[in-house]
């Protein structure tokens, strides 16, 4: 028989879980249900006139080819951002893990960008890549590449991906580094004695042991790319040129807070919420199986 620890009275456990439940209700369930309700309304900006229009907002969305296109763009953007920031962070963490001298200095420097607000990160890259005055655009021109994210959609997409993943590298780095340091040295050393080369050691021992961290970060990064990146797009490309960087969350922000179309924006946020919930469920069901805890 399995031994179970149970509370003798109901009061204490309820008290203990209450804060979490309240926070979830106030900061997630309530706003989410508001968004759900709002998405069925057609309302003027001031909230003076409001009509219940059932699913009109959703029908309008899905009959708009531009909205459907932005799905594809979001997939490219999110996959690239998550991939790039995870890859770079893992590489840096693996390197920093082996550094003996000045490790704290390296770590502090790598963590810095996380303190930068998304919009500021965007502006930073925006200036470096500015076709007229940007230093990087100037260097690229020297190499024979005419960088112009005002006209070229691919350039613009690369710019926002770069800015978005640069900011996230620090966060991933911290977790990867902590994960790496939790791996017992003896395992790696034993493999080294058996003649395994660094890459082999990393791939067969370190990486599998790191998989819980990697999985957690994958989920967090996808959520980040889907939800948190509108500031970067807003500050760099405003979704252009010609919609080439209009990702779903930017459209939610732009239609709601700039265009003041609350119903349409709420409908988009409901769609986005559904997409992310599906993705997360999918990740937990299928990818988590490959994770060794």
């Amino acid at each position: 028989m399995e031994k179970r620890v149970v509370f003798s009275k109901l009061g204490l456990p309820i008290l203990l879980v209450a804060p979490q439940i309240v926070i979830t209700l106030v900061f997630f369930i309530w706003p989410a249900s508001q968004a759900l309700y709002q998405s069925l309304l057609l309302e003027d900006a001031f909230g003076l006139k409001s009509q219940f229009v059932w699913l009109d907002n959703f029908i309008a969305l899905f009959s708009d080819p531009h909205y459907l296109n932005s799905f594809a763009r979001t997939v490219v953007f999110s996959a690239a951002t998550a991939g790039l920031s995870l890859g770079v962070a893992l590489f840096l963490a693996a390197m920093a893990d082996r550094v003996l001298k000045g490790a704290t200095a390296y770590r502090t420097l790598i963590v810095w960008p996380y303190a930068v607000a998304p919009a500021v990160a965007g502006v930073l890259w925006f200036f470096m890549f500015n076709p007229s005055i940007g230093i990087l655009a100037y260097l690229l021109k020297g190499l024979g590449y005419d960088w112009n994210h005002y006209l070229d959609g691919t350039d613009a997409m690369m710019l926002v991906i770069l800015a978005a993943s640069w900011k996230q590298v620090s966060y991933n780095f911290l977790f990867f580094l902590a994960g790496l340091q939790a791996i017992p040295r003896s395992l790696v050393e034993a493999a080294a004695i058996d003649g395994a080369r660094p890459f082999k050691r990393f791939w067969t021992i370190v990486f599998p042991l790191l998989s819980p961290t990697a999985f957690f970060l994958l989920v967090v990064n996808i959520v980040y790319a889907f939800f948190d990146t509108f500031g970067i797009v807003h500050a760099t490309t405003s979704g252009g040129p010609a919609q080439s960087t209009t990702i779903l969350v930017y459209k939610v922000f732009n239609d709601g807070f700039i265009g003041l179309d609350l119903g349409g924006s709420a409908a988009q946020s409901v769609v986005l919420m559904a997409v992310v919930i599906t993705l997360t469920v999918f990740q937990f069901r299928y990818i988590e199986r490959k994770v060794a805890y």
Partner: protein
Amino acid sequence: MKPKFLPIAVGATMAVAYAGSAMAATEIQWWHAMGGKLGEKVVEIAEGFNASQSDYKVTPVYKGNYTETMTAAIAAFRAKQQPHIVQVFEVGTASMMAAKGAIYPVYQMMADAGEAFDPKDYLASVTGYYTDTDGNMLSMPFNSSTPVLYYNKTAFEKAGIAGPPATWPEVEAAAKKAQAAGYPCGFTTGWQSWVQIENFSAWHNLSIGTKANGFAGSDTEFVFNSPDHVKHIGQLAEWQKSKVFDYGGRRSESAPKFYGQECVMYMNSSAAYAGVKANAKDFEFGVSALPHWADVGSAPQNTIIGGATLWVLQGHDAEDYKAAAKFFSYLSSAEVQADWHQFTGYLPITTAAYELTASQGFYEKNPGTDVAIQQMTGKAPTENSKGLRFGNFVQIRDIINEELEAIWGGSKSAQEGLDDAVSRGNALLRKFEAATGG
């Protein structure tokens, strides 16, 4: 038209801190979107008013750029915490006008407060944008500008170009001469929808939308895909290939192209004057009227404004509105307006302010600063050049931006892009019509 991002935290904090000391005075809140130097000027104006009398006190609060300020005011209204006065940019006009229960029309407030107010004192081309169909002024003009052509005089001399081009073919000729003299690009533009579609239309007396550009009803439809518009935009797209024209961003991001002498001509707001003056370090610059096509419409007609006005929001005491009315009288006095106009490059909103500025010899000392005002007042505005009033226009401008970028990038022809912009814009107009009850 130029968005101002720099916060004036110091000024705003001080203004808020002062608010506590003068308990006897009726205090009203003024939310504005003027950052940096302009923000300091706004604080100066409010302090000037506060010092001029002791019954009322205006507290200016910086709320971010235009869209942020408008969004903040609307959110505050929904939460019943609205300011008395809010600065709203011109494309938000239709949204504000449609919010009948939320706004207190300025002409009505001035009458209720018993404050002398004559709309005729104001420049018709400015107020035209903000009056209802019965000719009543709904908001108080504050900062208005219109697009002009800035040109690099030094480069023009080097390339042997006689003077500023008046027509588009002359722009092309000047650009090619400049390119031959080693300058990489002819001209660039800021705010492309405002300059190359909206003002292009007004300047050539062409309609942007039906129903007198939306003034006569919200059941308006866009028509800026006419052959004349297609010709102009198609020509720009053609020029983009040879860098006679070079696109540089949706707002004023193209300015460095002019400052860095990459492009020798630059079309943007007359309020960009101070910025151009500060940044044109290695060359002389001149200001001239927007170019026109001699064979299109009845050009040159007049251009339309951008910028912002002050709206009064409902839900406060009568005494508060008296304060707002007094403040508006102070704000539109010739001295305050002339000072604002000379400092910022925005248009003087009253005839008296214009005349005062002229009599002070400002235009002679600063050649080009009167181009904007002449361009706006040269002819009596027509139905096509009075302004525009379209709902959801903030979003529609984004659509126009997107389609124009597709045209400049070559993925759509001018006809396709403008057709798409018109049909997507019309969908948003219908949505606005439905949301505000027509």
